[in-house]
């Protein structure tokens, strides 16, 4: 929103030595966010008023003319110009050599002495848009140059002497959403008067205070009090479609608004001044001069003065007469009842509508106007009266013959004054600064609050009356008053101080510990990359996984990306995309992700509301690890990773075959990790395995890949096991090897279990080598070399004895497993 410093200066004196930038900074630090400051006149610096003496055709160009222009300096300037409305005696805006202009209204350039089609040109005769005056002097044709003859400005003078010298401040609208009083200049002037300790002029000084706006006459009005709680209609006669005086055109142009006609412009100007939206109807268009405020009927049609046709479905508030809709309340006037060039009598509307209803209507119709933006903020209903008074004051000045024929007003808003009690000590408690009662009172008073005399019985208490313009939105509680005082006092004046706090016994945070350990172990020990993926899934990815039943997923009503409308129930989908993408520049990949997955079918521990028995859907934290590599023993590598991780975490686990593993695994190359909770219930913690070749195909992953998945919420609830020290034997171990040719179907674990049972002295069995060759007849065999480590805790073993045991073991292995020694 643009704010004019000149308009502010009407209401509050701004110290000379304070620059616009400093004022902007003060506002940012105490009231609202200022985005920029612009001094107008950048394009008027060197422009002078000139009079055209003669116009000749250009010898070499049909569309160009050569003009002799008098700029009051004696010698005439020779200027080539393409304007279509050039004529002798015309007063024009001349840009001499060295002046900055906007070519065709957009491209900035500095003029140089030049030849145009062979004829020398010593400057430029400007179109309005070329010197940023397009708003002030709108023209139909781009080739029309600015004709100043009617204004009778003095030839030779600088144009800037006649134009605005204003500075504009641009405010970020988002920072004043909660301050309905700041959507007009007067409210901002009030802020500045409090910030700068400068007196604020009463708005009444600018208004006709004799106007009978407080009337109780309402026979011409039929108002639905649920839709409007303050409505004022005022008929004014003896007006017409006149252009606005220059000062008004200038003011509107500075604020980025177009000048339409004096009466309409006054309405817009008053809205900019005091924040009250106003609307002017052509009185002859209002049937019987009676106005109704009601809800729109189903499919009621309305043509706005923007030319748009609107069909109303949602009971939007409309201003109507007995026959038709006159306006969309608070948003847009109608085309049929709009002020036009034939209008001689008008009806002014100044009203107050409920913020949420205007907001809804504005959104339903995708229609945002200056008026609707203000109504949405919850305006002060009292402002209706100020808007009307100020409007009439300006109309009187511009239309001396104007008369008020009648005023009708409906009012049902609550006129009681809001009162808030706040303790003086509360200010210090919240801020950490000792503020005196006096300081607090002074600041509140400067903002328009009224502080009652000190109560002898409750000396610490302040009884504060809230002014109506702050009572509709953000001032409700004692703490709101604390904020008012502190921000004017200046947050920068609050010295920092470290809090004093009570030491609490530490709270166990099992998931946090787990997460940190997993991160460190996987990154530092296994050299994996941590990735973050979106929580949304592509339907495409689900299809690639061969899943048809989409009903098990949780859907979003309004996904940002329609190709990703569901929440992930597993980390795998995105991790597979990661593999596929990164394969392009790497042939050895290891990624992991820790994140939440969402499942419709189960519940989690979180409640929906305090005291509610309903629970939110399952959204456990999961760990997902993918490895992709050409190497042969990928699955063993994944198993080793899983085991080392679990051991590092100190959690007990068991690896077993699974009955039903997720279908993305290679069915024979998957295992499940389980544990038992304190009730001896079996919990499945996760799975690991090779990904099926078909899956890799659909995701275009060339490398063999393995996936590990662990439910971290479940894992964090399991107890940790601590290590226990085992006494180191004093006696040396004897290691003996054995090589057997054995069926591949015999599991290593089974072989070891079998051997271990043979003697207690066997402390360790290591695998030294696995050997296969195609030279053997039978492809089902392989040769294992085992190293058996014999050791006693009580004595040194003798080699003879150990050899004997060794031979016995070899013999029984041969017999039991039908193996052959090598």
């Amino acid at each position, binding site marked *: 929103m643009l704010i004019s410093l000149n308009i502010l200066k009407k209401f509050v004196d701004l110290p000379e030595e304070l620059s616009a930038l400093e004022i902007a900074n003060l506002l940012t630090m105490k009231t609202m966010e200022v985005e920029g400051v612009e001094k107008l006149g950048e394009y008027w610096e060197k422009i002078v008023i000139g009079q055209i003496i003669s116009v000749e055709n250009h010898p070499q160009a049909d569309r160009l003319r050569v003009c002799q222009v008098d700029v009051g300096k004696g010698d005439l300037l020779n200027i080539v110009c393409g304007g279509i409305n050039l004529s002798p005696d015309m007063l024009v805006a001349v840009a001499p050599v060295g002046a900055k202009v906007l070519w065709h209204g957009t491209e900035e350039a500095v003029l140089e002495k030049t030849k145009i089609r062979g004829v020398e040109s010593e400057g430029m005769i400007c179109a309005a848009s070329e010197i940023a005056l397009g708003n002030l002097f709108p023209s139909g044709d781009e080739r029309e140059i600015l004709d100043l003859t009617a204004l009778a400005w003095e030839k030779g003078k600088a144009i800037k002497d006649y134009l605005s010298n204003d500075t504009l401040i641009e405010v970020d609208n988002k920072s004043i959403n909660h301050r309905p009083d700041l959507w007009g200049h007067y409210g901002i002037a009030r802020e500045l008067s409090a910030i700068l300790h400068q007196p604020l002029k009463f708005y009444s000084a600018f208004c006709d205070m004799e106007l009978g706006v407080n009337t109780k006459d309402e026979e011409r009005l039929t108002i639905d009090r649920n839709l409007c709680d303050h409505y004022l209609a005022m008929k004014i006669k003896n007006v017409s479609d006149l252009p606005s005086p220059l000062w008004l055109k200038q003011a509107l142009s500075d604020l980025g608004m177009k000048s339409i006609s004096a009466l309409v412009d006054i309405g817009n100007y008053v809205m900019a001044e005091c924040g009250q939206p106003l609307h002017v109807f052509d009185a002859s268009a209002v049937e019987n001069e009676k106005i109704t405020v009601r809800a729109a009927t189903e499919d009621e049609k309305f043509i706005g003065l923007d030319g748009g046709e609107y069909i109303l479905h949602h009971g939007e508030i409309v201003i109507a007469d007995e026959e038709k809709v006159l306006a969309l309340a608070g948003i847009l006037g109608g085309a049929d009842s709009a002020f036009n060039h034939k209008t001689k009598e008008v009806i002014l509307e100044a009203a107050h509508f409920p913020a949420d209803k205007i907001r809804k209507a504005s959104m339903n119709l995708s229609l945002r106007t200056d008026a609707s933006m203000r109504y949405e903020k919850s305006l002060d209903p009292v402002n209706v009266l100020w808007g009307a008074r100020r409007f009439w004051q300006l109309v009187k000045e511009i239309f001396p013959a104007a008369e008020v024929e009648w005023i009708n007003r409906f009012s049902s808003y609550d006129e009681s004054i809001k009162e808030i009690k706040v303790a003086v000590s509360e200010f210090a408690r919240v801020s950490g600064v000792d503020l005196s009662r006096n300081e607090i009172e002074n600041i509140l008073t400067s903002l328009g609050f009224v502080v009652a005399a000190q109560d002898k019985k409750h000396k610490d208490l302040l009884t504060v009356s809230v002014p109506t313009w702050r009572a509709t939105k953000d001032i409700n509680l004692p703490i709101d008053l604390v904020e008012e005082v502190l921000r004017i006092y200046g947050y920068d004046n609050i010295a920092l101080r470290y809090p004093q706090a009570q030491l609490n016994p530490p709270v166990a945070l099992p998931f946090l510990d787990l997460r940190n350990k997993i991160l460190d172990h*996987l990154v530092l020990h296994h050299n994996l990359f941590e990735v973050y993926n979106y929580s949304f899934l592509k339907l495409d990815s689900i299809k690639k996984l061969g899943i048809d039943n989409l009903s098990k997923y949780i859907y979003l009503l309004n996904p940002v990306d329609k190709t990703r409308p569901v929440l992930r129930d597993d980390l795998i989908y995105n991790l597979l995309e990661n593999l596929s993408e990164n394969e392009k520049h790497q042939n050895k990949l290891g*990624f992991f992700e820790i994140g939440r997955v969402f499942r419709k079918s189960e519940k989690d521990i979180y409640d929906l509301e305090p005291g509610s028995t309903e629970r939110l859907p399952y959204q456990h934290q999961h760990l997902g690890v993918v490895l992709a590599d050409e190497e042969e023993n990928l699955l063993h590598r994944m198993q080793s990773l899983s085991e080392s991780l679990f051991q590092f975490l100190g959690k007990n686990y068991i690896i077993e075959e699974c009955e039903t593993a997720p279908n993305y695994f290679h069915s024979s190359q998957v295992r499940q990790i389980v544990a038992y909770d304190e009730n001896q219930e079996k919990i499945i913690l996760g799975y690991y395995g090779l990904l099926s070749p078909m899956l890799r195909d659909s995701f275009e992953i060339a490398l063999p890949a393995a996936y590990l998945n662990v439910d971290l919420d479940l894992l964090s609830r399991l107890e940790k096991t601590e290590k226990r020290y085992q006494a180191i034997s004093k006696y040396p171990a004897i290691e003996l090897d054995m090589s057997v040719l054995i069926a591949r179907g015999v599991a290593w674990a089974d072989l070891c279990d079998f051997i271990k049972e043979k003697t207690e002295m066997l402390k360790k069995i290591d695998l030294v080598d696995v050997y296969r060759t195609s030279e053997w007849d039978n492809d089902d065999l392989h040769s294992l070399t085992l190293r058996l480590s014999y050791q006693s805790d009580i004595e040194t073993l003798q080699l003879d004895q150990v050899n004997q045991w060794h031979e016995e073991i070899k013999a029984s292995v041969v017999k039991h497993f039908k193996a052959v020694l090598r």
Partner: protein
Amino acid sequence: MSEKDYQSSVKKLRKDFTADLLAAGNLDDLEALDNKYLGRKTGLLNNVLKTLKDLDVEQKKVLGPLANELRDYMEKALESKREELKELLWNEQSEKEKIDLTLPLVKDEKGHYHPNTIVQREIENLFAQMGFLVLDGPELESEFYNFDGLNVPATHPAREDQDTFWLDNGLLLRSQTSSVQVRAMRKYGAPLRCIVPGRVFRNENVDASHDHTFYQLEGMMVGKEVSVANLIAMMKTLLSVVFGNKDIKVRLRPGYFPFVEPGFELDMQCTLCHGAGCPVCKQSGWIEVLPCGMIHPNVLKAGGLNSDEYVGFAFGLGLTRLVMLKYNIDNIRLLQSGDSRFLNQF
């Protein structure tokens, strides 16, 4: 043998020795030299000493020391030459064994933390040192905890479709980590201090600096005596640690959020131009980093606390934004891209 003969043979020995020493080129030569002259049984010096036997006591007294003097000289010279040759040998060896350390023979395949994780853990550590709990809450949340409990009115624009992701059963994806505030107060009561780092979701148009999925770090401190002055101190500490600048400049100005009152925006001096003005800070010299404020009494109430007894501050750090600022990342989408060429830089 006469005195004169003795003296001259000592002199000659000295001369021969010196010449031989000069000629000795390596340690082996030196060893041989040692044996030749100082060898116990057959050394040349020994031979000369033997001739001493034939002299009388008076002569022995004069000539004996000569030989000893020569012995000392020889031993010292040999030692010194030995040291010299050893050093020469070391240097030669060093030259020969010189290795090109720029040759990347050892493949170091390191793993990598995600940059968000790095910054998040740094901040978690900072706060844990000050006794703050590190908490988390659900990402799929209820309207109560994400809006109502945070004093966000039913008509607030933030509840619109264009900002928040909704499910058809009225649940939503949390749009800020503040949703954990009320949960935390109900679970742990007061006094309480905690931070809540986590993933949040906003239904926004995606561009280089906006994504629909990003990270925030919420923090709150509730107690009997907690003030704005305390908030400023804590926020300054937080920013100075993250940006490694003890003298970081901050400013506090009015901001408005339904769940805090007073509400503030905390700006920090632009890290790029140091306050002079540049495109990063839109010429203002300040970067908006921390919305914060004193917890609204209605929120304390929703948390089961009496706002007359307890007061507190809360802040919502844009963690993703901070990570991008710290590492100079220019496109937010890289953070969720899973691109190893991005991840391997951290």
